[in-house]
């Protein structure tokens, strides 16, 4: 029982170390150690601190945010298939980003357009699903799915209209790609804040599994809890999508990996989801950078390639 949390927590520094140690340029162990201590070769120092460390942290933040959002949405919507993409937020951000690429605006404009798209989607889900008759998981789910397919159609339209030179960049964005990720600090702050806020509600989320009426009868302020958890999940998804595009699978799979390993209390599940999601994405991104170096693979392809067999294996062992 205790080995899973220890392994997951130990994976965090291990995955970050691997992400910093490997890249398209080979650095020897001595060179790496010097660079980490701000000594020696300036180019090595720049590679380690200017390129690899921010990229590793960006991957970690992105994966942590997505896994946390997935864990929250799965309990809120009482649906094991819930993942961050179900909010329509990823779709909204993708539509915004692709529109910006089509119009040829710069990186700042692209991020702004993605943020606008994500906010429109999140606002629409909030407005439709928290109507006057209160929270209804089915309505949230279907609103999110409807928005996601609407945005999907928009994305398809833009892909078919775009000049072929732009299509590759668009596809990378859609598959999830951390290469343009510059500064991970905002996402890390959002990750810490969302994880802390969600953790503070973990005992109430445990009770919510029994259903809304039972949770109410045990003293949970259900409407408030749902608003907090939903807000957390939305914020986390927006921050992750802005940083890494639509990286799939982390948010869906990571919470299930933990549940299938016997972690079910949210006090453990939420922080460990953030740790495991972050580590897995940092590892996947390292692989994406090095497997076909100097070319980069979209990291979303690798998360699926790793996540699918692992989940199927654990599901096969489920009693």
């Amino acid at each position: 029982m205790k080995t899973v949390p220890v392994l997951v927590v130990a994976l965090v520094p291990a995955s970050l170390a691997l992400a910093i140690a490997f890249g398209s340029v080979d650095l020897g162990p001595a060179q790496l150690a010097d660079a980490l201590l701000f000594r020696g070769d300036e180019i090595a120092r720049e590679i380690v601190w200017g390129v690899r460390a921010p990229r590793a942290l960006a991957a970690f933040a992105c994966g942590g945010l997505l896994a946390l959002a997935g864990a929250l949405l799965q309990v809120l919507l009482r649906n094991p298939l819930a993942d961050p993409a179900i909010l329509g937020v990823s779709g909204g951000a993708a539509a915004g980003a692709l529109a910006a690429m089509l119009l040829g605006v710069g990186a700042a404009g692209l991020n702004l357009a993605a943020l606008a798209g994500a906010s429109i989607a999140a606002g629409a889900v909030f407005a439709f699903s928290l109507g006057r008759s209160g929270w209804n998981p089915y309505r949230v789910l279907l609103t999110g799915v409807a928005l996601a397919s609407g945005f999907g159609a928009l994305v398809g339209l833009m892909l078919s209209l775009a000049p072929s030179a732009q299509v590759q960049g668009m596809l990378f964005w859609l598959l999830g790609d951390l290469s343009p990720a510059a500064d991970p600090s905002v996402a890390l702050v959002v990750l810490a804040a969302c994880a802390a806020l969600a953790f503070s509600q973990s005992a109430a989320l445990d009770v919510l599994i029994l259903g809304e009426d039972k949770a109410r009868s045990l003293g949970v302020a259900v409407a408030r809890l749902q608003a907090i958890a939903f807000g957390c999940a939305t914020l986390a998804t927006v921050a992750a999508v802005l940083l890494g595009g639509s990286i799939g699978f982390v948010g869906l799979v990571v919470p299930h990996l933990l549940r299938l390993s016997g972690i079910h209390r949210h006090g453990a599940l939420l922080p460990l989801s953030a740790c495991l999601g972050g580590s897995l994405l940092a590892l996947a991104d390292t692989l994406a950078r090095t497997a076909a170096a100097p070319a980069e693979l979209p990291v979303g392809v690798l998360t699926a390639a790793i996540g699918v067999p692992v989940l199927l294996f654990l599901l096969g062992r489920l009693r």
Partner: protein
Amino acid sequence: MLEAAGLGLSAGGRELVRALDLSLAPGAFWSLLGRNGAGKTSLVLALAGLRSPQAGTVALDGVALAAHSRGELARRIAVLLQDEEPDFWGSVLDYVMLGRYPRSRSAWSRDEEGAAAARHRLAELDLADRDAQTYRTLSGGERQRARIAQLLLQDADILLLDEPLQHLDLNHQAQVMRTLSRCASGGKTVLAALHEPGHAARHCDFAVLLYDAGRASLGRSSDMLTQANLEALYQCRLEAAGTGSFLPS
């Protein structure tokens, strides 16, 4: 003291309860009987403060339920719902321990006192050696007893139970009724929606009969659970089942 005054309930356009006055005093064990769809569940939910009545009020110690905080109500009133999502991933002990939420919700320290109480409750309901088993692997009747153990662990002074005997075998039905009866003798208020008039007659002091179209009558079990009343309630003829009918002694 939990009191309903002038209570009116309806669901799906049908009137279930009309102008019901009911006061549940400490130490009393009430049964709630009626045909399917008579409004037993709606009444239990309204008494627990989980549904707003269409008319009238429910008050705890003279104060309307809506004026109490959820946390305060959870320490006073525990309710066993009829249905529940079976989607719990932990052990039986973890499941029962959720009943401690109103009193102890620290995410850090282990609640040893609560765990001891939970094991005691599990033993009382014949699940002594099942605490480490995965909750989802329990049978329907075992699950029902685990749910009752969780309810008892909540340690409220008012227990409202919607069909506590569903899925239970004859022996465990009697065991649960005896446990609830002990709770009432210990000063708690107990109200259980039942489909078993035999158990109600043996263990419950009072009965509420919910007839169709909003009519209800209530009183001592000995006065209420007569053949004539039960025939009117269930709208069928009843006869003694002869030697085939037993209740556990």
